[in-house]
């Protein structure tokens, strides 16, 4: 377990570059946030506007799914390098989750 990190010494320019990169990333996160708020607003509006259920249900589920993707990939960095195994297990989990929900809404009768 002797894998402690080696010391890092960055040049000034390198350091500034990383800082800028992070700031750009952070602006991206703000955009994601804005989108989440926007999607939530749409969902609530749809329900308030009282459209047909057959229209609303798929749309709001889709909106929720998009939000989850934003959270996972942007806020939780699942797209970053070194997340392959984690993504695999998350998707396995989502697959099992989906199966369970499908079961309970179809073959547990009435």
């Amino acid at each position, binding site marked *: *377990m*002797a894998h402690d990190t080696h010391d890092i010494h960055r040049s000034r320019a390198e350091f500034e570059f990383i800082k800028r990169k992070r700031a750009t990333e952070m602006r991206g996160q703000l955009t994601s946030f804005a989108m989440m708020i926007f999607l939530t607003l749409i969902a609530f509006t749809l329900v308030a506007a009282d459209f047909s259920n057959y229209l609303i249900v798929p749309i709001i589920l889709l909106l929720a799914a998009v939000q989850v993707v934003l959270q996972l990939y942007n806020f939780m960095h699942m797209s970053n390098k070194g997340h392959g*195994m984690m993504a695999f*297990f998350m998707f396995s*989990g989502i697959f099992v989750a989906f199966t369970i929900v499908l079961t309970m809404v179809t*073959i547990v009768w009435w």
Partner: protein
Amino acid sequence: MSSNSQKKGFGATIWDYLTTVDHKKIAILYLISGGFFFLVGGVEAMMIRIQLMKAGNDFLSAGTYNEVLTMHGTTMIFLAAMPILLAFMNAVSPLQIGARDVAFPFLNSLGFWLFFFGGIFLNLSWFLGGAPDAGWTNYASLALASEGHGIDFYSLGLTISGFGTLIAGINFLVTIINMRAPGMTYMRMPLFTWTTFVASALILLAFPPLTVGIFFMVFDRLFGANFFDVTMGGNTIIWEHFFWIFGHPEVYILILPAFGIFSEIFAIFSRKRLFGYTALVFATILIGFYGFMVWAHHMFTVGLGPTANAVFALATMIIAVPTGIKIFNWLLTIWGGNISFTVPMIYAVAFIPSFVAGGVTGVMQAIAPLDYQLHDSYFIVAHFHYVIVGGVVLAILAGTHLYWPKMFGTMLSEKLGKWTFWFFFIGFHLTFFIQHFLGLMGMPRRVYTFGADQGWDLFNAISSAGALLMAIGILILLVNVVMTVMKGERVGNDPWGDGRTLEWAIPSPPPFYNFAQTPLVRGLDPYWIEKMEGNKEGMVYAEPLGDIHMPNGSFIPFVISLGMFIAAFGAMYHTDGHAWALPVLIGGLAITFGSMLVRSLKDDLGFHVTKEELIADNERIQREARALEGGKKGGLK
């Protein structure tokens, strides 16, 4: 702490095991407690067979019989088979990938103690007013109707031990993902490590549904919820689904590590690399994947409708394909090999026909309309005992013989081992083969008695006789263990002489830091490669000798688990209106969360084994090895 050769007092040894975070010692703890529960479950099995040895027997009353059958199933699955497999995973997997320990030594210990206290809690039901009596499947309508606290013991005990198992699963996954030695790519991992990996993944995703289902059961029984209460809008089929969404992967959680053990044995004792390693790995992954898509074949007669039944019937049949791939690859592994019939190998060889028999009856039951006849009859009892005894238990017995020298540094007697084998193996087929026919002759499972006018007497008598032979076999094994411990003859690194993977490259038992230097892996079966190339050093190393960082032992896992154990009593007796119950519940939780808080607030950075200590330790090991060479050779060569 730096040397395990020091003689310690009895109390110090106990304390050492109570606080250990060393995966090898935790393996021993799992083996001992799993072995103990295996004996308990075995006694329960014998009681079942005594009761059913003749028509209208009155050895057990109806209610007691239901308790015994429930506890037999629950104990064998959750408290015996799984922990013993976890023992081998702990003892061997980290060594096989060249790691110094598991990823989370502290959690490893916590996982064990949670399992242990959960198991003790469940078994205390015998002394505290009656054991659970709704079958290990604990179907909701009967479980809610069951009086007394039996079902509460079941739910709370399995909740606690289930957390332990989940923790163990995550631990092995992370260990295998992050801690493989340099050169140990995924496609060079020994098959036992692969099956550990896939079984852990199944634990990760299958235990949550069980936990949720059991939580519903606890809330229904203790806190007035209505998940399964039909009159309040509840639905008992929800329980059945959750139980089997967990229950089917659970079968693979048990059988995959068994496959792994047999894969190792076939390769070692045929002196041949596994035939079709890649296919075996992918078959393992596929079996794990299918494990989640077939659970409703346990529910064909529930009335889910023909569409659901047909879909699940077809999905179930597909599993036969990867399983068949495995069987044929094993056959081709021994084909052209140099087979030595040691005790582990005899078990492995006996496993193939037994498991094939269990597998084909599985396919028969996948045929949904046929299953309407077979379901809940003795045919299914025969089937799953063929799979679990013929697969998992044979693997456990084989693994005990195979890894005993690696875990304890001594060798179980081959002669007694063969006696155990013959008694157990013949007893097993005698007990269960005939039960297929009992099922076809109309005998339902889980009956405490049967009338003499139904033509089942003879076969039941034969079945009971077989159970007796199995019991004799296990007794011989116990004698074997005691004699081996008493004798205490030490063995070297590779007592079987044909070890192929990394665990055979280091002393038996290994020093607490496992590898003084992390080995460099140059292919599949790394130790075999070095042996074939005549490497005198044993291995090629990936790093120079240097300080090793190791975790400290800790008593906190024990205390956390104890807290939950205490809290469970509070929760259970709370419904009886005892004034002391609520304080006990709160007190237990306070112990648990308090010790968790202590753990997170106190920095625990571990300690270092210095280079000098390693060199001294290595010299001691060399000295002992020379002494071993000089004296009578240990093991067989």
